[in-house]
């Protein structure tokens, strides 16, 4: 029978082989434009393979440095989040090798050659030695760092194929050092090639899956009511049962003269054709507005000056979006804007960066956007034609001049209809508008705007159904009008005397009624929204100076505060530990005055052996007569030290006096 020694299996991670960390850092530097830093960090981390000196970091040192790494990571995350919002997660990912650098330096230049799990998790640190050996042994974080570098590098999102090859090479290098020795190198190489081939297929497959699934879900959303501002088509809630749920979310802010007549109507787009609860326009391309040379400004008419300006801040979820603008817009200016387009139906589409952006609107006394009316602007679907003919006849609209028609229609809706955001009756799809006109006589803005637009068309006035926002809530502390999702509104434009005019027949109580649904958390949410707007927005004019730079200065006191908290906590802990120690001292009688005497005896006579009792020791080192003198003293000391019945103060005094007597 053969014998084998107790050869335990390696269960901890091995250190990364020399050069691997540098290689992974180079991949990171190449992908993220941090090449110089990558080279410096790489050399710093590889240097310990060639030099012998090491620093003896204590556990406490490592814990503190790990905490400091945590603080650096936190500050970095805050800074990146402030500057890049949620998109910043990729930026944080990109900066991870920096955040972990301190820990890597401690590991590579320290004697421990690893980082204990307790250094990374305060909860384990609190449990201490009882946490079990697995959690207290050092783990070499070299190989995890290699993978972190690769994942960080992936955020660079460049040179897809080369990056794949680089990753395969780095991972293969890592695995080569870990390969199972009882298989040949050829087997290992074949395995790696097998992995390369299939992982290349897999990564291509993943991209394909995403493409196909996106198309599939887009179709699904389009089919089941995707609600967005489409310059060509909009679905109304006419015919929707139940109560309209409108959010308090702030959509945009407008800085305008507080004395401006309210409500201000900010239009997103107008529509010309109505059929079955949806308005639409013919499909036409938007016109690109040329940029004023040397300025971040787009003017529709370069000769007519602006009469007023408004500053708007809006959150863009996409780089291209239809933005709400007031009538008679002439100028759009802002450094975040890349391109501006307008349509003949009054839509203004911009291309800009995502997130909160600011722009300035210049208003003139002319409408340069909307095209003059077309036949479609007088068209009424045959389904509704008889209804509107009946009303027009009743109101005698055919015989009136356009201005009288406008007044009559306005009065008609004001006197006979009231506002409601609930629709509880169920009708055939095309009957909702008819029932609104003749039976229910109540509805929300879409009912009023649609009905008014069609009634005016019946009277021969061209109209367009318009959607956008009614700007009416002025926030004194924010110094701007705030426009919420529930301020979304529908009205109409009618064309008289060669100009388009706004008309809103929705009863004015619509806004207070919808505001009733606001939540108790609205002020808090407003504040958070304002904070986010303040910290992530940018200036309208300035090209270079970002108003988030002040956040950098904020980070300094934050860092100082965190460091102070960190060290003061340690101090407090230390003080507490001292207190505990002193209480323990007293409790266990460790402050017995006999101990200094023992030290003296040890110094001048002989040391006490391990496991030797006090009395045996005294008997051994002192003459019998002297040792007998000590026997009562030792009993007293033991009582003070161990007996729960000991009166600590009295015994201590007694011990002190006895010791004094003895020494005299």
């Amino acid at each position, binding site marked *: 029978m053969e014998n084998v020694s107790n050869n335990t299996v390696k269960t901890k991670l091995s250190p990364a082989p020399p050069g691997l960390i540098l290689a992974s850092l180079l991949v990171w530097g190449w992908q993220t434009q941090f090449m110089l830093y990558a080279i410096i960090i790489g050399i710093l981390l590889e240097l310990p393979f060639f030099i012998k000196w090491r620093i003896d970091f204590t556990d406490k040192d490592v814990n503190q440095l790990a905490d400091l790494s945590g603080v650096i990571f936190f500050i970095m995350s805050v800074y990146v989040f402030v500057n890049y919002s949620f998109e910043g997660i990729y930026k944080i990912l990109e900066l991870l090798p920096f955040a972990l650098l301190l820990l890597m330096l401690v590991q590579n230049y320290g004697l421990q050659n690893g980082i204990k799990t307790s250094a990374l998790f305060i909860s384990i640190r609190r449990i201490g030695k009882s946490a079990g050996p697995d959690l207290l042994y050092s783990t070499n974080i070299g190989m995890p760092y290699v993978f972190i570098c690769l994942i960080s590098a*992936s955020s660079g999102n460049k040179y897809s194929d080369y990056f794949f090859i680089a990753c395969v090479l780095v991972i293969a290098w890592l695995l080569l050092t870990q390969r199972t020795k009882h298989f040949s190198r050829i087997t290992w190489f074949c395995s790696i090639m097998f992995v390369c081939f299939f992982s290349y297929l897999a990564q291509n497959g993943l991209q394909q899956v995403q493409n196909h699934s996106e198309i599939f879900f887009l179709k699904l959303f389009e089919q089941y009511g995707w609600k967005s501002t489409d310059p060509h088509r909009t679905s109304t809630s006419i015919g929707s049962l139940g109560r309209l749920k409108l959010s308090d979310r702030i959509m945009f802010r407008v800085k305008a003269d507080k004395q401006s007549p309210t409500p201000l109507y900010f239009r997103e787009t107008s529509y010309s054709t109505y059929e079955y609860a949806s308005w639409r326009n013919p499909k036409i391309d938007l016109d690109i507005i040329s940029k004023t040379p040397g300025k971040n400004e787009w003017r529709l008419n370069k000769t007519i000056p602006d009469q007023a300006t408004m500053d708007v801040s809006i959150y863009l979820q996409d780089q291209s979006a239809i933005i709400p603008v007031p009538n008679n817009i002439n100028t759009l200016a802002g450094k975040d804007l890349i391109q501006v387009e307008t349509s003949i139906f009054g839509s203004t589409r911009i291309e800009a960066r995502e997130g909160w952006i600011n722009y300035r609107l210049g208003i003139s006394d002319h409408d340069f956007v909307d095209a003059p009316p077309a036949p479609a602007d007088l068209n009424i679907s045959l389904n509704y034609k008889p209804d509107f003919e009946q009303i027009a006849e009743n109101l005698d609209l055919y015989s009136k001049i356009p201005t009288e028609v406008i007044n009559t229609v306005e009065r008609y809706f004001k006197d006979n209809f009231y506002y409601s955001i609930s629709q509880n009756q169920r009708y055939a799809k095309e009957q909702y508008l008819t029932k609104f006109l003749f039976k229910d006589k109540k509805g929300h803005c879409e009912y009023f705007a649609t009905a008014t637009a069609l009634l005016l068309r019946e009277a021969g006035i061209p109209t367009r159904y318009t959607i956008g926002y009614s700007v009416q809530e002025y926030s004194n502390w924010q110094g701007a009008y705030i426009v919420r999702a529930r301020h979304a509104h529908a009205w109409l434009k009618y064309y008289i005397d060669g100009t388009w005019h706004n008309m809103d027949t929705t009863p004015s109580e619509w806004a207070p009624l919808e505001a009733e649904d606001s939540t108790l958390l609205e002020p808090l949410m407003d504040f958070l929204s304002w904070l986010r707007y303040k910290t992530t927005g940018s200036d309208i004019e300035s090209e270079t100076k970002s108003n988030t730079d002040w956040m950098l200065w904020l980070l300094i006191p934050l860092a100082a505060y965190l460091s102070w908290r960190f060290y003061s906590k340690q101090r407090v802990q230390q003080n507490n530990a001292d207190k505990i120690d002193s209480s323990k001292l007293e409790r266990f009688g460790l402050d017995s005055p006999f101990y200094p005497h023992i030290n003296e005896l040890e110094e001048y006579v002989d040391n006490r052996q391990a496991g030797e009792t006090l009395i045996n020791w005294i008997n051994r080192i002192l003459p019998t007569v002297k040792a007998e003198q000590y026997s009562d003293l030792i009993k007293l000391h033991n009582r003070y030290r161990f007996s729960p019945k000991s009166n600590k103060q009295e015994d201590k005094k007694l011990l002190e006096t006895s010791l004094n007597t003895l020494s005299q």
Partner: protein
Amino acid sequence: MLRRLIFANFKLVYRLSQWMRQRFTSTGTLILLITPIAGVFGFDTRNTLSFQIFSITSVLLLTAIFFSLFFRGRFSIVRKLPDYGSVGIPLNYYCVIRNENKTAKRGLVLIDELKSQFPSLDIFSKTKDPLDKKRNRIDRFIGYPRLVNIMQKLRGGSIKPVAVDYISEKSELETTIELTPLRRGYLYFDKTRLAQAEPLGLFQAQKTLNNKDRLLILPRLYKTPRLNLQSKRTYQHGGVSNASTVGDSQEFISLRDYHPGDPIRSIHWRSFAKLNKPIVKEYQDEYFTRYGLILDTFLEHKSELLFEDAVSVAASFMTAQKEQDALLDLMFVGSTPYHFTSGRGLAGAENILEVLACVEPVFESNISQVESMIQQYSRECSAFICILLNLDESRLRLIKALSKLNIPAKFLLLQDLTDTENTEAIEENDIYLIHHDNLQQDLDALWKT
């Protein structure tokens, strides 16, 4: 409801984590952890290239698992265990592996396993983990670290896997395995696995062999003082049969007439023949010292560490007594009241330790059973040592009952350092405190007092 739901998932999580620990090598585990991270960041393939890392690591893992399917081999394993082990002291035992294949095998890992039993929700809820105080609220609430500790305790020990680099064909190989017992009582060995990593070194193929066995782990022992309770020797009913050479059993006093019931072997045959009536030899009554050691097993809400300490203290006392003239009676209540006598001619220290190795705490207090045991043996015992876990009313009643018997008694109370309750009662009844964190020193001090 929530607790039940969380607990129901523990089994799955625990098994999964055990499977991962057994199957993946350290590098494999790292890649296994990196894969979901790369997956999360690479979810949108247009934002980062992390999906490429995800692809590589996933294919690596799948390839490793695939290659592991080709591990074949016939082995047999015989385990050679020692008679006993002690809590906390690593012990070595041997395993003989026989390679029954026609080819030599390389790069094997021998993993011996102790049987692990998943606790019931009731046991999980009742078990207190002293480390919980130091844990954060989430860990305390979820309770998974507590479960891991319970599982470790139920398993009873940790065994280091052993690398077997080479074993030639049709041959045997003996390996030494180190086991660190974590608790007393029987440890049950369940399966032995032979693992071999695949070429990439990420995943281990395994061959599992059923190999059941058991090993008794004795309680931890401390240095204890020799008992000196100023007791007197007492008459022992039954005399010599209980202790062949203890006491004065062979002291002849006189001859007397036979009384019905006298044993035949006491008849003095020569006098019988001379006087023609049965005469028996009369011996001096049996008098010797007999200590009763009462172990409190009613743990109630106290920490199990205290109970372990109590068992260790009891075991230490039982093994420390080398007095030739004394017997030591161990009394405790488990599912029923137990009473064991040790001493010369009776059960030895090993037997008593075996008993103590298997003592389990009782969670519902029933001190009256102990009281009745004391009443039963009070006439025979010269002194009592009572190891208590708590000092509530029922125990105080027991102390008073013992005091009334006028038999010397020593009361030891196991306590945490932080426990400062009942100080008056402790002083009043002359109870000696033994602290969990200071056990040996307190026992040493007991010696001195």
